[in-house]
């Protein structure tokens, strides 16, 4: 299919970047990056959400900055420059959380400064922002960051639901629910993540099967068109 409207083309391009970052290239589901905060803080959906939000913000700032200065940094020193930029933004986020979200800051603790070494962020700076325009890098950061947050909230929600019978602190299963402690403990994080990854793979396979089917139908239609064209000529 060809797009002749430049606006539509632009929107399609951004949508493709977003879909890639959020789903097809998702830091957790597809690349299995950033496991440390994922397994460490997702004892509840709320913890997962704020950890994801902090990472999203760091990712947006670093992607945008790296993209803006991408011509000015010599290739040899780009990694130390990127890490310095990421560390600065993460420290700023940490100080802001300490000041205005003190309780959540105490819960997330060490995992906030550890965002600096989340390879998903340096990975995006290196693989995307250093080669693309600021706008595209911003879209990529938003997609990657929200995909990461989605994964953290999903895992946190599953663990909170099975471990305590609650989601975001709301009682779901009632007071009689026998808390399955294992899901709050580290082994539960691995087990829940395994099942979620299996689910993601099933969805991906179904999506691919549907796409193949559509492509097959399209191909037969085109052959039919060609045949008619041949007959007419």
């Amino acid at each position, binding site marked *: 299919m060809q797009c002749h409207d430049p606006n539509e083309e632009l929107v399609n391009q951004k949508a493709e970047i977003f879909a890639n970052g959020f789903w097809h290239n998702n830091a957790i589901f597809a690349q299995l990056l950033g496991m440390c905060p994922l397994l460490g803080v997702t004892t509840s959906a709320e913890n997962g959400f704020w950890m994801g939000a902090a990472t999203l913000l760091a990712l947006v700032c670093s992607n945008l900055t790296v993209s803006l200065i991408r011509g*000015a940094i010599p290739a*040899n020193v780009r990694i130390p420059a990127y890490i*310095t930029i990421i560390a*600065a933004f993460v*420290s700023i986020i940490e*100080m802001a959380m*300490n*000041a205005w979200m*003190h309780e959540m800051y105490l819960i997330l603790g060490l995992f906030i400064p550890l965002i600096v070494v989340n390879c998903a962020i340096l990975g995006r700076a290196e693989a995307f922002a250093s080669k693309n325009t600021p706008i595209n890098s911003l879209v990529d950061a938003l997609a990657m960051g929200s995909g990461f947050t989605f994964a953290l909230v999903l895992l946190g929600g599953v663990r909170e639901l099975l471990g305590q019978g609650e989601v975001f602190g709301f009682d779901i299963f009632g007071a009689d629910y026998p808390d399955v*402690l294992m899901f709050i403990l580290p082994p539960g994080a691995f087990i829940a993540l395994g099942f979620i990854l299996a689910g993601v793979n099933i969805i991906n396979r179904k999506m691919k099967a549907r796409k193949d089917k559509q492509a097959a139908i399209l191909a037969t239609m085109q052959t039919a068109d060609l045949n008619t064209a041949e007959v007419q000529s």
Partner: protein
Amino acid sequence: MKIDREQWQMVIALLVVGVVCTLLLATTNIFTKAPIAQAERQALMNALMQVLPEHHNDPIGDTRDITMDGDKKPTRFYFSRDKDNTINTIAWQVTAPDGYNGSIHILMAVHPDGSINAIRITGHKETPGLGDGISKNQPWLDAFGDKSLNNTRWAVKKDGGDFDQFTGATITPRAVVKAVKKGLAMFTKIKSKLLKKAQQQTEAQHAMP
């Protein structure tokens, strides 16, 4: 060795990135310093409110720092006073270094006669669902009320003491009980000095209007 143009570019690029990031951090620090101090003060205030009885002074501003033997940092004692300015409770923070997962910080409030008013856990990394009962299990925390060195066996029941352990978690309550007992023993030792100084302090405050 001569530094060529390319190398100068690297030096300048890193220098500029470093300087700009430092400036950004310094600016953020200026803007967040006061709110951070305020948030920490608020958190301490909330914890103090939970362990102290009714008082007619500002315990955060009514303090005394004493360095214990063998400690590097001084311990800060917060005084809670009645209407007639007599001290009804003293609160301070103790640390149990032997929790299941790192140190446990405990805020304890003790009457001048050496009996406990209340304790609260202000920081810990114990296992959720097991050891973290120390901060969530209110009846367990309440069991510390009115306990003093003389009227209590300071150990968990498993060790022949008066305090419950939790199912599946003995180390955590054991560490807390031990730390609170140690705190009480220390208090007995420095009580006279501490109370005398606190009294003098008040008199000094009254003397200079």
